[in-house]
């Protein structure tokens, strides 16, 4: 090829500080990025994909050093440049957007000023010209009323809007390369779709090279021209999107693709003949934010006339975007939030009418698994303590409880010796297993799982989902599964309830909701799932299908 690539990474090796789990963050990395191309870098957390992006930007943490190799930007070796020129490159020729739009903007600065900063240090424009450019940029990323929005502080904006501001900021001086580090992972599925379209659109218009880091193969299928798969600091497979997605060669790529959650049609129908365990009737909840004695605050309706029944052995999926009120309903059922009105009937008893002491015996029947396994386990307690606290509080003998805890740890696929260790010694997936064991220790009849896998890597996600699926068959559990990811809901739920703005807009058997959605919002959600056009290649056997087969043969 005669054209110099935009970005040419050759034999890049980055050393990790001593005592890390491996000597190199990335090892012998070689790839190129051409103009007008979207290169997706895929891998699980810790695979070195973010580290690579940070190395290109010159943003590596101090403890981490590039030990060999080079990064060339349009033929110039970036590392040989003086700091001044490297700075001109960052934000000028190479721009980056980050995963967390909620924290990536300075909370104390107006968004317009934050964009203005880039122009100030990379161009010679005067004040008025910069202001005009800021407005133009904000308009170009599809933000409403750019002249007004320019003066807003980040906390006034939604996650999607903030990510648009980030993109506007990155595009300020028309860079050649955009590095996007999981830019849609923290966003709702519909917002994700919009942001992906925006990136694609801008990239095509300006023939930018985009290095897009993600762990989601759906997103890859949606936007990638070429794909690089990373594992433990190495590129194990690189090729066109077409090849990697449909004819994956490396076992690790195949494993990742197999773990992608997907709509499955072969799930046997749930029969509604069984007993209802929990019925929510016309539950309403409104939160009042801010305000004082005389000044009215903002009202947020998190629950408006919510009715829902969970039968014995049934998994009900509660799907919707953030702020739709999914968690509020889940928390109301566990008794963490008191709804304003309505009934929550557990085996015929209205939990809301009970006093605190009268409610207590019911607590053990309804248990919850939380989203963030890093925050939901007390770091100062041993795993054994964490699991036995519940049963001991309900009067069980400590030794007996500990024996049971060990049995539970085995049940969720951990070693019994885990009981003596502390949560920080476990990975995210293992911690979520501990959380599940903790919830099961009280032998609940109903499990509320609030986004239990959204903080986990895909392959770990598949394992935890598998575990939940397995447990509910073995223990005949009922489950309310709260998620924003429709693919996951499709995989694990019998019944789906779709929530929007505090209302359940559609509820029905999973097959019908996904196969023949009635409500416009459900259709929007389904339409926004990334990678719909791509079907997992036949020769890669999905994880759940494999385990279902195992279960049937056992």
């Amino acid at each position, binding site marked *: 090829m005669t054209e110099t690539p935009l970005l040419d990474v050759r034999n890049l090796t980055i050393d990790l500080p001593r005592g890390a789990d491996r000597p190199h963050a990335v090892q012998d990395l070689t790839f190129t990025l051409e103009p007008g191309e979207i290169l997706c870098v895929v891998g699980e957390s810790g695979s070195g994909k973010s580290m690579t992006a940070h190395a290109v930007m010159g943003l590596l943490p101090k403890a981490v050093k590039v030990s060999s190799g080079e990064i060339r930007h349009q033929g110039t070796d970036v590392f040989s440049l003086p700091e001044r020129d490297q700075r001109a490159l960052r934000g000028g020729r190479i721009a980056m957007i980050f995963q967390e739009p909620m924290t990536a903007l300075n*909370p*104390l600065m107006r968004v317009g000023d934050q964009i203005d900063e880039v122009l100030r*240090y990379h161009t010679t424009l005067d004040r008025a010209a910069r202001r005009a450019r800021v407005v133009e940029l904000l308009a170009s990323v599809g933000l409403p009323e750019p002249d007004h929005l320019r003066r807003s502080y980040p906390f006034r904006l939604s996650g999607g809007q903030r990510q648009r501001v980030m993109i506007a900021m990155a595009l300020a001086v028309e860079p050649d390369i955009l590095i996007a580090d999981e830019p849609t992972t923290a966003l709702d599925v519909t917002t994700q779709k919009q942001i992906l379209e925006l990136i694609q659109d801008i990239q095509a218009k300006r023939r930018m090279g985009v290095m897009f880091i993600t762990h989601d193969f759906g997103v890859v299928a949606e936007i990638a021209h070429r794909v690089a798969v990373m594992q433990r600091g190495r590129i194990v497979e690189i090729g066109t999107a077409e090849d990697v997605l449909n004819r994956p060669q490396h076992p690790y790529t195949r494993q990742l693709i197999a773990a992608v959650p997907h709509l499955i049609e072969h799930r046997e129908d749930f029969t509604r003949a069984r007993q209802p365990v929990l019925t929510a009737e016309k539950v309403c909840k409104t939160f009042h934010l801010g*305000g004082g004695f005389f000044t009215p605050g903002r009202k947020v309706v998190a629950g408006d006339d919510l009715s829902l029944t969970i039968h014995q052995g049934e998994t009900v999926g509660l799907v919707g975007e953030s702020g739709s009120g999914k968690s509020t309903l889940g928390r109301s059922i566990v008794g963490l939030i008191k709804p304003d009105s309505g009934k929550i009937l557990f085996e015929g008893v209205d939990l809301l009418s009970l006093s605190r002491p009268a409610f207590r015996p019911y607590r053990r029947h309804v248990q919850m698994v939380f989203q963030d396994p890093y925050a939901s386990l007390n770091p100062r307690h041993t795993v054994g303590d964490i699991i036995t606290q519940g049963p001991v509080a309900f009067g069980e003998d400590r030794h007996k409880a500990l024996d049971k805890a060990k049995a539970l740890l085995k049940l969720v696929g951990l070693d019994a010796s885990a009981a003596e260790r502390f949560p920080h010694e476990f990975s995210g997936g293992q911690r979520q297993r501990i959380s599940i064991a903790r919830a099961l220790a009280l032998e609940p009849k109903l499990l509320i799982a609030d986004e239990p896998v959204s903080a986990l890597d895909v392959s770990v996600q598949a394992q935890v989902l598998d575990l939940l699926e397995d447990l509910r068959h073995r223990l005949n559990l009922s489950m309310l599964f709260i998620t924003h990811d429709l693919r996951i809901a499709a995989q694990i739920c019998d019944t789906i309830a779709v929530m929007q703005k505090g209302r359940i807009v559609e509820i029905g058997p999973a097959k019908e909701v996904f196969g023949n959605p009635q409500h416009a919002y459900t259709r929007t959600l389904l339409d926004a799932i990334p990678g719909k056009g791509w079907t997992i290649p036949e020769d890669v056997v999905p994880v759940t299908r494999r385990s279902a087969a195992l279960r049937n043969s056992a």
Partner: protein
Amino acid sequence: MPRIALFISQRLVKAVFVILAIAVFNFFLVHAAPGDPAAVMAGEAGAADAKFVEQLRQQFGLDRPLYEQLGTYMSKVVQADLGYSYRQQRPVFDLLMDRLPVTLSLTLTAFVLALLGGVALGTLAAMRAGTWSDTAITVVGLTAYATPIFWIGLMLILLFSVNLGWLPAFGTESIGAGYTGWDAFLDRAKHLVLPVTTLGLFYMAVYTRLTRASILEVRDMDFVKTARAKGLPEWRIVSVHILRNAILPVITVAGFQAGHLIGGSILIETVFALPGIGRLAFEAVLQRDYQVLLGIFLLTSVVVVVFNLLTDLIYSLVDPRIEVAP
């Protein structure tokens, strides 16, 4: 800005009630201590005659029931009359106004210098965390924080006044020198150097530690990474992005400390023989000089309330997420 005006006026109305409540509370607090000015005066005069004490009590109105005394006091307070010190034979207000400039010139100077120096040193230490300059700043800060404040004062006197003879050791001006104009100001400033340094060192240590810890927390945040990715020069990242976010906890503590501007310098005033409010309070306690004591308490509470209001206002200016809500 009508919103700000509304906020301030509402807070001021509340403040009046708070201060009145404090005045009542102070009144009982002062009277809860055993002994009264009559007993102390009689004791000092060497006349333990019960009749004489009784006569003094009558003269000062101390023989009336407590609630009646409270009524008299409060009715004077709402008229901004702080009473009359029989002990000093002067109105309390005049006494306070005599002493206030000395105390304020000491505490305000120390406060401002400590704040500026502390934030600067803390920033320096945090940006060079782990290097020798960080260690030096941390060690010096810790020493200044842990050493008793009067001892530092005495040592400074020993070094700069007694041994080197550079600076005066006590008082507010050279008595009998007859300086005027610029010379008089310089003379007063010279007298303030040691007490201000002593008081300021301690607070500077607090701000240094606070700023350093806060910056270390902020500098790893995502938006700092964004600022780096924008290709901004380092000084701009530190001053605009890191420091502005890190300064919030410092403001909280500074606002809290500013409330102590009046009463927090008793030790320093004693060591350096400065005729300030702190000394006045100390003497008033010994003499059971109720009126003076109550006057000082009231003044202190007004200062605390005013600085609380100021802190809230500054907070809402620095952090847009905090809205002034009355």
